[in-house]
């Protein structure tokens, strides 16, 4: 039986980590993810986990320690945000290229500068091409559920890639909400035991990990990483199916909310998807056929499936909580539109950069996007596709 509880997003992530009981957690505190290692170190201190907790002196060291322990054969987790992830950047690539299935809880926050501790997705977008599987979570429940599934996906023999579970800093990380928790023994059984095929502390098989890899083979190794990322898609679906069978909550590569018969659709990630659902319901009551496509799996990007799911609508808006500062639009917009193009889906599509640095995203902002989409659907033209939502107007 699921347990009815109320937890913040950070409490939900820490609870998942407690139930997973990994061999090693190495972390350095940073707002807004600080509470995760804080709560976890309490679990270590009072003996509710038998994890080795490594209190390092920086995030670079945190990821380095994670790499060392995972390579040694230990199931390893960490948590960070924003500039913490930036400081890990060198090691982020090493973790994925060494095919180490480390699991990270990333509580999304704006990367400085100027200094800002609030939510946007610029931290995650900065590592979108680093070879990590990336799952996004609308609320505390999804942050919890995604972490319960994380190791089975990352450690799968066809994947063996690190994985990060994202949630919105403060908006969900510090909001107390209802959640369904699962019983410890059931989580333990679902997550299973980590049995790496090759690992450093296996004295029967002495190996080297991460030696020099020049013109002869680096290309092939990168192609293998890319192949593993492609494989991750089916593994995520398999694990999600088993999760649904075990715990009853259904997950796919993305969630389609009233999208079947929608004429206009928004594509977005994390907590904004919840606000968008609220708006979709209100618009549906007024007879406006609005829908939502919420990305759960951002890496690997389910391009073909997204394009197909959007092929019947008359206008699409992609919401990016990070500006790529590239003069053509945000990262999610680029992924969605290129997927549509190569799959022969020709629907007018616009991009809104929104919510930067914690700017509150209101239901009326989302309504204004749907209202723009109605115009675009009517005219069939998407002019000025790179737009802002919720930006202050020049004041006189």
């Amino acid at each position, binding site marked *: 039986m699921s347990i009815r509880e*109320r937890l913040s997003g950070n409490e939900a992530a820490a609870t998942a980590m407690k139930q997973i009981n990994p061999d090693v957690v190495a972390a350095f505190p940073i707002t807004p993810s600080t509470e995760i290692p804080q709560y976890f170190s309490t679990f270590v201190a009072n003996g509710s986990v038998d994890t080795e907790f490594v209190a390092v002196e920086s995030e670079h060291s945190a990821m380095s320690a994670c790499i060392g322990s995972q390579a040694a054969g230990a199931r390893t987790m960490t948590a960070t945000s924003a500039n913490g992830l930036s400081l890990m950047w060198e090691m982020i690539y090493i973790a994925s290229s060494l095919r180490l299935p480390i699991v990270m809880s990333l509580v999304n926050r704006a990367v400085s500068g100027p200094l800002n*501790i*609030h939510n946007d997705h610029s931290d995650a977008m900065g590592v979108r091409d680093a070879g990590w599987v990336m799952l996004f979570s*609308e*609320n505390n429940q999804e942050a919890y559920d995604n972490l319960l599934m994380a190791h089975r996906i990352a450690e799968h023999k066809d994947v063996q890639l690190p994985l990060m579970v994202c949630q*919105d800093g*403060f*908006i*969900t990380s*510090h*909001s*107390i*909400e*209802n959640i369904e928790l699962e019983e410890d023994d059931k989580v333990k059984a679902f997550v299973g035991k980590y049995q790496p095929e090759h690992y450093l502390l296996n004295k029967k098989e002495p190996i080297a990990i991460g030696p020099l890899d020049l013109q002869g083979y680096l290309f092939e190794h990168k192609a293998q990483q890319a192949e593993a990322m492609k494989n991750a898609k089916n593994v995520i679906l398999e694990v999600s199916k088993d999760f649904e069978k075990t715990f009853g909550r259904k997950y796919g590569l993305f969630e389609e909310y009233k999208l079947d018969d929608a004429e206009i659709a928004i594509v977005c990630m994390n*907590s*904004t998807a*919840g*606000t968008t*659902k*609220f708006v979709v*319901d209100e618009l549906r009551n007024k007879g406006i056929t609005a829908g939502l496509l919420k990305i759960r799996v951002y890496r690997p990007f389910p391009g073909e499936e997204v394009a197909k799911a959007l092929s019947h609508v008359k206008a699409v808006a992609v919401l990016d909580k990070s500006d790529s500062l590239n003069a053509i639009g945000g990262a999610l917009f680029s992924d969605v539109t290129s997927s549509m193009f190569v799959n022969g889906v020709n629907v007018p599509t616009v991009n809104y950069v929104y919510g930067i640095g914690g700017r*509150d*995203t*209101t*239901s009326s902002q989302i309504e204004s996007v749907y209202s723009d989409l109605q115009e675009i659907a009517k005219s069939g033209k998407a002019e000025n596709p790179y737009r802002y939502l919720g930006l202050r107007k020049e004041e006189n």
Partner: protein
Amino acid sequence: MSNLIEIRWHGRGGQGAKTASLLLADAAFNTGKYIQGFPEYGPERMGAPITAYNRISDTPITIHSNIYEPDYVVVVDDTLLESVDVTAGLKEDGAIVINTTKNADYLKSVLKGYKGNIYTIDARKVSMEALGKYFPNTPMLAAIVKVSGIMSDEALLADMEGSFKHKFAKKPEVIAPNMKALELALKEVKKVN
């Protein structure tokens, strides 16, 4: 979501407005509701104005934004009345609950013609009498429950006793005084207009 109740808290850093919003979320959760309790994090410092929010509903809550058109507003510190637009967006069929000893004329003048119900409570008096110290959050929790009718007095008292026992496990001597603060506050809250 017509059953959705939205509450906005105004206080100053250190007075426990955030804690009170989380306690209210807890109490409503324990009566079987869907809840949200979250503060608006700014450059929070002791004494600086802070805002916290609650959503309480019979059905799951998906919206994740601040609250702009609350059903109820709670003001934990009346020195905010002149500097913060506490009734901004407040529904006229809702109410505002203020911790104050100021008179009705003053309140009406600073609330800029707010037409809904105005309630007051002297949370300082309640707190000093029950706890011997000034912690306005427990009396304000009781006041908003009374005004909003989210749950019965009895349900609040029964539920909070459990919460306090858990929260103050290491300081059991403060449980009874906090319960007294709730009971006094339930009687002390008054309608002004």
